[in-house]
């Protein structure tokens, strides 16, 4: 098994722990993951609303690079995952757009081809590697750890490619395979407020607080997520929430970190210490 890897900006910046744990887990699983050469911004910025064509071309460039290889591309960041998939669909449905974008790419010496598959690591772990294999690799089961799995909006909306739009379960099943318990809760895909925290901090913070508070109410010791944007938004502003709503004090971890722990990898290797809200208490003894 071999995959290409599109990191995007988050995994090289605020989401470094995600990259570290993602690569560590796949390394430990013996799956080859090769970073896409010379990748660029996925296009998940305000660019899309400024100039659609250019933004498609931006994303299309990454796809054209990926098309040189046959292996599927993993995009762990939800935003990258969505934008790359959206670009493929957009170009597939709109021949005029495709003509413009492929023309632009050709001018840059790149050949855009259909058929590249952009996958989320959740999808790869559950559907390619399989829960049975994960279970076999678990050395230190996360027994007794109660988690709230929080998916965020982008990996199931608007395209539900590998999980249900309203009630996704992939990550719950993965966490259960690692021995953890997942609380049943209804906010798995509710907005984390991430896109508002910068512009309407009150609204953004409130939305984030709702998520964290509900998870806490349901007895979760930590929140687990596949999205670097959600992770940052939910983790970084808990101090600011304190004055307004209360302090959730809820560590927010990447699912890859928890899988890594269960597989017996070192906490440092998985970037566990990088979180703002310390996870030590929740992960006591692991």
């Amino acid at each position: 098994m071999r995959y290409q890897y599109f990191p995007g900006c988050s995994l090289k910046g605020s989401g470094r722990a995600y990259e570290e744990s993602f690569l560590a887990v796949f390394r430990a699983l013996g799956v080859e993951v090769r970073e896409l050469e010379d990748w660029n911004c996925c296009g998940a910025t305000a660019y899309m609303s400024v100039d659609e064509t250019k933004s498609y071309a931006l994303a299309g460039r990454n796809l054209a690079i990926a098309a040189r290889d046959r292996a599927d591309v993993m995009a762990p960041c939800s935003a990258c995952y969505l934008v790359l998939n959206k670009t493929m669909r957009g170009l597939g449905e709109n021949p005029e757009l495709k003509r413009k974008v492929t023309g632009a790419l050709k001018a840059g010496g790149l050949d855009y081809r259909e058929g590249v598959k952009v996958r989320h690591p959740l999808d790869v772990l559950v559907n390619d590697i399989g829960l049975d294999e994960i279970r076999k690799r678990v050395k230190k089961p996360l027994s007794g750890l109660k988690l709230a799995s929080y998916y965020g909006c982008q990996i199931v909306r608007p395209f539900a490619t590998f999980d249900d739009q309203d009630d996704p379960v992939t990550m719950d099943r993965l966490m259960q395979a690692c021995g953890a318990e997942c609380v049943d809760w209804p906010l798995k895909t509710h907005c984390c407020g991430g896109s508002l925290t910068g512009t309407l901090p009150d609204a953004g913070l409130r939305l984030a607080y709702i998520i964290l508070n509900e998870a806490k109410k349901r007895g979760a010791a930590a929140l687990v997520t596949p999205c670097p944007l959600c992770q940052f938004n939910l983790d970084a502003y808990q101090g600011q929430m304190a004055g307004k709503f209360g302090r959730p004090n809820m560590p927010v971890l990447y699912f890859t970190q928890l899988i890594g722990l269960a597989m017996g990898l070192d906490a440092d290797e998985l970037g566990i210490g990088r979180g703002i809200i310390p996870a030590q208490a929740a992960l006591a003894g692991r």
Partner: protein
Amino acid sequence: MPKKDHKTNGLPRVGFYICHCGSNIAGTIDVAAVREYAAGLPGVAVARDYKYMCSDPGQELIASDIEKYGLERIVVSACSPNLHEETFRKAAAKGGLNPFRVQMVNIREHASWVHTDRASATEKAKDLARAAVARVVHHRALERKRVPVDPNVLVVGGGIAGIHAALTLANAGKKVTLVEKEATIGGHMALFDKTFPTLDCAACILTPKMSAVKAHPNIRLWTWSEVEKVEGYVGNYKVTVKRKPRYVNEDLCVGCMECIDACVYKEPKFHDKFNQGLGKRKPVYIDFPQATPKVVLVDPETCLQLKTGKCQKKCASVCDRNAFDFGQKERSEEIQVGSIVLATGFRTYDAKKDKQYGYGRYPGVYTALEVERLVNASGPTSGEIKLRDGREPKAVGIIHCVGSRDEKSNKWCSRVCCMYSLKLAHLIKEHSGAEVYNFYIDMRAPGKAYEEFYDKLLGEGVHFVRGRVAEVTDWAVSPEEEGKLVMRVEDTLAGIVRRIPVDMVVLSTGLEPQADAQEVRRRFNIGCGSEGFFQERHPKLAPVNTFTDGVYIAGACQGPRDIPDTVAQAGAAAAEALALIDAGHVELEPNTSAVAEAECSGCKTCVPLCPYGAVSFDEAKRKAAINEVLCKGCGVCAAACPSGSITQNLFGDDEIFSEIEGVLAK
């Protein structure tokens, strides 16, 4: 004697008629230009245009011209032959011409209605006219074969539609076999407590009809049975019915139900399908007290005797009629009928598919059908509205259009949900006094006394919120929401997003085609629309007919409908079958194939191709032979005959080649 017109040059004399169809055709096609063009075609002795060819004067025109101009062929350029071919054949016959010497040109459905450019639509009409004139020359005089109609009728499905159709036919003196796949007839209606808008008790109006079916000397009732195979053709169908074992002799059981009491299982503990899983039953059971036939049956999946062969068989020992027969096997029976009424009903949308409403996750979420059982006096709670945890709900929310009017699931309106939601709102309020909220997109109450019923509910204090519910959640944001199900909805009348806490959510699931609708329609050789309901022959003019003669459809298998409409349609289907039976015979389309014996080499290519066994190999003559009565006129043998020795009437090589040359010659 009409003068021979010199211009037909020895060709049969053709009359050409083009219809304006008001402006339907004339609005897009230059009818006069086509008429003039046709007048110059070889063989055409007269060409006319007329406002409505299908009207009496239009038909009369053809009939009188036949006499006046000595016409030997007729071409009518108008609408689809599927609509009016028969009309113009009759008009020709009236004028003394063999009706099969008529050809129609479809310039309405296939031209004026689908094109906008007048010039190209007119060109198309001319091309098609030329082809029809070229082809009609080859039309031979044909006669329809008559075959007798078997007066017996098969009704498939024992819901209210099948029951009503069967009774109507039986009352008219016809022998009916009613086949139902469940153990009892009654269908969905038997599940209901009350019916809208009259709120009369469903059982009170249904069970007498069920008993009448059982008691009727002209009805043979086969429940727990399914149609396996259908062969033959209109008037003469051979149907194979699979009869599943009940392990109880139906003729001996009187339905005393003592065996149920005696069963080694002291308490009912198995899933009770009839009660939507809300109640439990024993391995030996009867769906409900008024089940018809009132005969118990044994479930082989749960019965100890049938599973292990080791049981005290207390059930059998208390039966003073010795009705138990654990050795019963599934068997097939063949019956002969002349016509078939399909009334196979619907299923409700699977509420689990709409994850946002939490059905299957939150015990407080119910489907409407479950609530029908809860409010039913003979249901699992004897009519008390009790939640799965035993609490009585203080507030209930009813979500309309679940699995209806939804791009993600079913696009159609299920027609009954608004009304049954109102009915359930009324019954829940009446039974429990709870606050009831209806969440609707818009209220659809178009039946007799339906709007009035809606008005009545408005007066009863039932809340109406216009908006599609976004989600049902147990995420509480205030103390009063704790322990409740919260319904998040945009109230589009108030213009705000609301959170309404309730104890019970009712999903008004829509109506869908039965899970096996595709298999069933293939078995009966009928069609389905894109949504999967059985396809009627014409949406307006032949709503209970299908494209297979002698097979009629009634009730919700054709599309969502309520009880009054279903019963009306069942009556219509019965009437269609009666009309067929009373005619005593059917006339078969003469578009059958025939072998030119002298030219047949006996290569047998055609023999296996016929799906009806109409083509056989005559061992004595060493040639192929076609049985005209069995032949349904597909023409596959004519296409395949490698020496061109098989001809299909009306679709012969000469006719089709002329048509090809005709559309292309210019």
